Structures are given as C-alpha cells and as structure tokens.
C-alpha cells in the first residue's frame, strides 16, 4: 500500500472555496483507495506560523502533496487531483 500525504491549506474557519477544494481531494482519495493508494488528508491553517514558516505566503485555498505546494488560489477538480495524487504515489 502506497501512501500520499495531502495538506489542504485554507482559512480557519474554512471559506467556501477551501471547502470545495477539500471535497475534490476527498473524492479523489476515495477513488484511489480502490487502486491501492492510501491518501492521508490533513487540514492546515494558512494563517498559522507553521504553514507560513514551511511554505511562505500562500493564497488560499492551497494544496500541498507530500510537502510540496502544487495548487494555490484555485479549486482543483476531482480528476486533476486524482492525476496529481497518482503521480505522487509513484
């Protein structure tokens, strides 16, 4: 079983666009579970010093896969997310 870590980085409380991003990630993760990839989803607060220290100034919503920010300031769709996660699992 391969593992991929995804951080959904957004505002706290989550804004509408952050929630939509999270949903895409969750749906993609669900699909990938069947093909043997485990996706661990974490929520990160864009305002926290940990996040800013790690990645710098981001535009919400942002998504980091295995500690690399891949998407920022937009909502990815489910298919795109699936593709990115698959690549990361390789």
């Amino acid at each position, binding site marked *: 079983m391969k593992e991929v870590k995804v951080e959904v980085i957004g505002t706290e409380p989550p804004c509408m666009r952050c929630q939509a991003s999270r949903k895409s990630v969750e749906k993609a993760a669900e699909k990938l579970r069947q093909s043997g990839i485990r996706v661990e989803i974490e929520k990160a607060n864009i305002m926290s*010093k940990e996040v*800013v220290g790690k990645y*710098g*100034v981001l535009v919400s919503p942002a998504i980091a896969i295995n500690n690399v920010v891949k998407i*920022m300031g*937009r909502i990815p769709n489910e298919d795109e997310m699936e593709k990115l996660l698959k690549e990361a699992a390789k």
Partner: protein
Amino acid sequence: MEEKTKRTVRAGIILAFVIVVIGLLIYSRIQAYSLAPTTPPIELRDYPLWAIPIVYLYDYFSHGTICLLFAFTVAGLIYEFVPKEVITKYMGSSKALGYGLALGMAPFLTVCSCTMVPLFGGVLYTGAGIGPAITFMLMAPASNILAILLTGEMISWELAGVRIAVSAVVALVAGIVISKTPWGKAVEKEHQINSSSSSSKIEIVKPPLDERLWAALKFGGYLAKQILPFFILGLIAVGYLEAFLPEEIIEDYLTGVGGVLLASVLGGPLYTPTLVEIVLGRGIWVKEGVILSKGALLSWLMGQPYDVANALAVSRITRWKVVLTYMLIAWAGSVTFGLLYGFLSGSL
C-alpha cells in the same frame, strides 16, 4: 489526439464568449449609451412607493447588465491568470520589493474577501514585515479590479484613475509610518518567523487552457453570487435616495470642505460592501450625469479601507494601536486628497 481537439474546441468556445462580452462593452461605448440608470428623480417620485425599486432596478439592469457581465468576467480571468506564485517567491526577500508587490498585486488578489486577511497574516509573518502587510491591507479593498471597473463604468473613469493613484499613496504612507512606530515594531517582532527559504517546496501545476478559462468564468460567477445580493439592495436604497433626497441637502451638507469631511466620516464606519459604496456614492453625488462634488465623492469612496469589519479582522492579529494608527492615516488621507482633488478639478 482527440482529447486535444476537444480541449481546443472548448477553449475556443469560452474565448469566443469572452470576446463577445468585451465586444458588447466596446459597442455600448461606441453607441455612447449610458450604462447607469437614467430615470430622472422627478419622474421616480411619481411612482407609488413600492414601485420605485422595481422601476429603478429595471432601469439599471436594462443598461447595466453588460457592465456587470464584463466586470465579473474580467475579474475572474485576471484572478485566474495572475501569477500568484510571485507573492510566495518574492514577498519575503526585501522591504522595498515587499512594498512594491503589496501595491502591485493587491488589486488582483483580493476580489474575494477570504483571501485578504490570510495574505495579510502571511505577509506579516515573513521577512517583509508589518509595513508591506499594512500597505497590502489598505490597497486591497480600495483598488480591487471589480471596484475600479464599476467606479469607471458607473461614475467616471477619471475618478477611478484618481482613486487608484491616491489609494496607493495613502497605503504606502500608512505602511511606512506604522513600520516606524514602536507599537508597529513590537507586533512585527512578536510575529516574525524565520522561514527557511521555501521556493523548493512550491511547484505549481498548471492545468490545460480550457480548464483554466472555465475555472475563471466559474470564479466570476461565484463572485457575482456573493456580491449581487448586496449590490441589488444598494440599488434599491439608491432608488429611494434619488427620488426623495433633495438636491439642496446635498449641496448644503455634502459639497465643499464640510462635505468632504462628512463624506470621509460616513464612508468608513457605515459598513457597506465595496461595490455598494460605489452605487450609493453615485446615488448621492451624481445628479443627471453631473458630479456635484468630485472631492466629496472621492473621500467617500476612499472610506472603505478603514471600515469596521476590516479593522476587526486585523485587530485579531495585530494590536489595537496599529489598527487605530492606520485608520487615522487612511482617514486623514481621504480628507486631504478629497480636498485636493476637489480643489484642483474645480469641483469641491
């Protein structure tokens, strides 16, 4: 291969739509018909009370739909295609660059209120510090693209231009002044973190063109959904204002030096979403196509950055002293430039 043609066709259709929208706006300019309501107040007064909003809204939307469609489409496109990574890459590097980025990028990144406060926090925590953070914070609502487009279309392009220039000056001054005050420095020290340069941790993926265009339109639609309800409420209020607010009251109280002062005070605490302020401003100061006092109107429009909701959000991160300082500077700026512009343009 087939996938590729499909994408090209999709991108083509969306681009065609965008071109039609832009074309419609240009066409309306060439035909020189007004994109704002045109019913004179005297006529409005003749309708029964309940009918005024309907007449006014109908009047507005029969002209203004093109303008709104254009504003939301362009806002969506710009937001999608502006390279957001630039902020992450360069914000922390130096003070001067920090100020430049704050001024240059704020108008494009903050059409959505949910991105503004996080960006403020992010900028504050990184090397750029409190000065650029405040500059960004003040520049953002004053000059976001939607606000500028609507100011231009509904009031005048001259005022829209002046508004950008003046907001930039005020935002810059406020940022620099606050970064020099002891309380500003204290906040900066408290929040500064050493971000171990992180460019290696950012690899933005770009989806194909058709998807980006579609996302841009969807974002424009999202903005419209968020803003239009307030906008329509604003229009209804303006309908009544135009019908019943006698011109003498405006001339007596809302023009001249006193008018600038009053407008600058009303523009802030009276919490109105950015775009509604434009409609209200038009309702109060523009009578049958003539701006009664350009100075007062500018002061009124500049009231946005120190409104209470923004101040509350910022005070959660910084201290009240910082918030008070920037509100004071923004208010002083709105009065000074209102008077100056009114004086120079001969319309105080």
